């Protein structure tokens, strides 16, 4: 009840400073709006990009054989590095830091179903490839398994666009696709995904088959590339170093010859993206915080005026035994109310803007702006700090008033 009366009293008092109060609250509201909206868009964009990155493969590295640039064991540089499936198996056996690894043999070929013919990327891979490259399979189906590899089964998993191209909307599991004149059974279909990068085409246009079957069909001796993920992110650099050592020994290149392999290090990309976003968010939040601080200065001025208006009343309170701490807290409480009002305006505006943006096609490209709990907590803490800073000095002045002088003030 006392608090409500205090707020009403504050609002009545501020009526004498309508223009100043309105512009100050608007300034603070705008600062809050800037911080929230910018961070909400930043969060949305980062999540969007992260989702796409995960769809391609989280914390993985892709390795292609390249050419040597250093002499090694009497061999000259400029030699082509050749990696066989057994080399990839040796990596799995000899590098304890490795979590998952899969070779990949790639061919481009025609697929046929009845009269329909489609060209696609044909990847021969190990079962680990599904988890490494985030191949989520539509319900009812599956990715490749160890038995498929061992038995060199003629089974395939279709990218979702390949599936639509060959079968339209018809059921597809268990159906036969002709490849190189041989029948292959469809065991799974990729769930649609949005990936931020690709190599040899998007996964939607790719089909996967057991690497052993691929070898049999296309006569591969060498792998096109391999994909791996360390057991833990912190083991990744060591795992990568060991890859050079093991392959260098087996394939005949100097482990220090970084050019012998072409490595697409997604973990490094993720780290860079994280720091880029952090910098981006700090910059966005910084500009919002500056606006908020300007609003805070306005609030501080308003509170100085308010203390001046209420000097006589503060004098009465002191004469009646109000301690300085109580006077200080009273002014601070009023400041918090004012800041909360400005903050609420900003929260409401930013919430409205994110809601409106969600109704547009924009989230397809920039992600869905999201006022995350972290953004809410951060903004609330910022507003609290602004209130504390803006209110402290007027409150201190009020608490230090000389009661005798304050009583005669009119």
């Amino acid at each position, binding site marked *: 009840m006392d608090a409500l009366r205090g707020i009403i009293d504050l609002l009545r008092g501020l009526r004498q400073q309508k223009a100043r109060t309105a512009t100050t609250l608007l300034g603070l509201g705008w600062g809050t709006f800037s911080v929230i909206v910018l961070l909400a868009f930043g969060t949305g964009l980062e999540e969007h990009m992260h989702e796409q990155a995960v769809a391609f493969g989280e914390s993985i590295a892709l390795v292609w054989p390249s050419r040597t640039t250093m002499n090694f064991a009497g061999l000259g540089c400029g030699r082509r590095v050749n990696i066989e499936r057994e080399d990839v198996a040796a990596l799995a056996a000899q590098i304890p830091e490795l979590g998952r690894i899969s070779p990949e043999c790639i061919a481009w070929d025609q697929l046929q179903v009845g009269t329909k013919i489609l060209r696609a990327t044909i990847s021969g891979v190990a079962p680990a490839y599904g988890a490494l490259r985030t191949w989520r399979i539509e319900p009812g189906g599956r990715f490749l398994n160890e038995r498929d590899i061992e038995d060199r089964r003629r089974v395939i998993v279709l990218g979702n666009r390949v599936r639509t191209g060959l079968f339209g909307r018809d059921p597809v599991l268990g159906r036969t696709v002709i490849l190189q004149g041989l029948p292959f059974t469809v065991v799974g279909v990729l769930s649609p995904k949005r990936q931020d990068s690709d190599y040899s085409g998007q996964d939607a246009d790719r089909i996967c088959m057991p690497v052993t079957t691929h070898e049999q069909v296309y006569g591969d001796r060498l792998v096109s590339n391999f994909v791996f993920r360390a057991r833990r992110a912190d083991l990744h650099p060591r795992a990568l170093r060991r890859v050079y050592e093991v392959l260098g020994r087996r394939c005949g290149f100097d482990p220090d010859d970084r050019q012998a392999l072409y490595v697409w290090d997604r973990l490094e990309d993720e780290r860079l993206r994280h720091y880029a976003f952090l910098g981006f968010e700090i910059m966005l939040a910084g500009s919002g915080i500056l606006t908020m601080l300007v609003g805070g200065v306005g609030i501080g001025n308003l509170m100085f005026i308010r203390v001046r208006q209420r000097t006589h*009343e503060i004098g009465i309170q002191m*004469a*009646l*035994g109000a*301690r*300085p701490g109580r006077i200080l807290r009273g002014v601070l409480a009023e400041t918090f109310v004012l800041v909360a009002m400005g903050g609420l305006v900003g929260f409401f505006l930013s919430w409205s803007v994110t809601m409106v943006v969600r109704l547009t096609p924009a989230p397809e490209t920039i992600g869905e702006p999201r006022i995350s709990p972290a953004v809410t907590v951060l903004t609330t803490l910022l507003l609290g700090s602004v209130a504390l800073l803006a209110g402290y000095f007027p409150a201190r002045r009020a608490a230090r008033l000389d*009661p005798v002088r304050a009583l005669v003030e009119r």
Partner: protein
Amino acid sequence: MIHLRDVSKYYDMGPTRVGALRDVSLEVSRAEYAAILGPSGSGKSTLLHVLGCLDRPSAGDYTLDGLQVGSLDIPALAEIRNRKIGFVFQRFHLMPRLTALENVALPMRFAGVRPAERERRAGALLDRVGLGDRRGHRPAELSGGQQQRVAIARALANEPPVILADEPTGNLDSQSGNEIIDLLEQLSAEGRTVLVVTHDETLARRARRIIRLLDGKLVEDSTRESG
């Protein structure tokens, strides 16, 4: 109750120092009713401010109810004002946006009394000063005499042993003034120490003790026989 020994109060006005009180020594017992008289600028209000712990003496000792006031910090002085002193001012000094009841309850709020208890006690005090039916009125809706009675009720909120009144009838007509004087006398009769700064001869005549100041010095301290 009140012991002043060689109390002085100086104000620095630029390079010069002005003495508002000079070596005032005074003893006031419990339940005394004294009038402090003197022309304008004689130091009456300064003395009242010092006695009321609104101001600290520049020199000398002041003991109130056994407490050395000069050595207390600001929060402790506020505590004394709240618990041991009730103020009645010439201009009433009521909080304009609070009702009579809330004004009376204000010192209790500062003393940490719970809201229900505050309301009960403030209501009883308003009944006592004859304003039980005005508890919801704001100061602007009350006459000067009524406002001063609210101020007296407020001064009694925490049942302080000392009442300090600064020209309590100065802004009132003679009838309202007499009512206030009657109230102050009652308080003294109940055992409270009442010190009144006044120009009002009627009020001064009814006090049992006259303390007179001139140029910051105590020039008369006389007690009249009761009756």
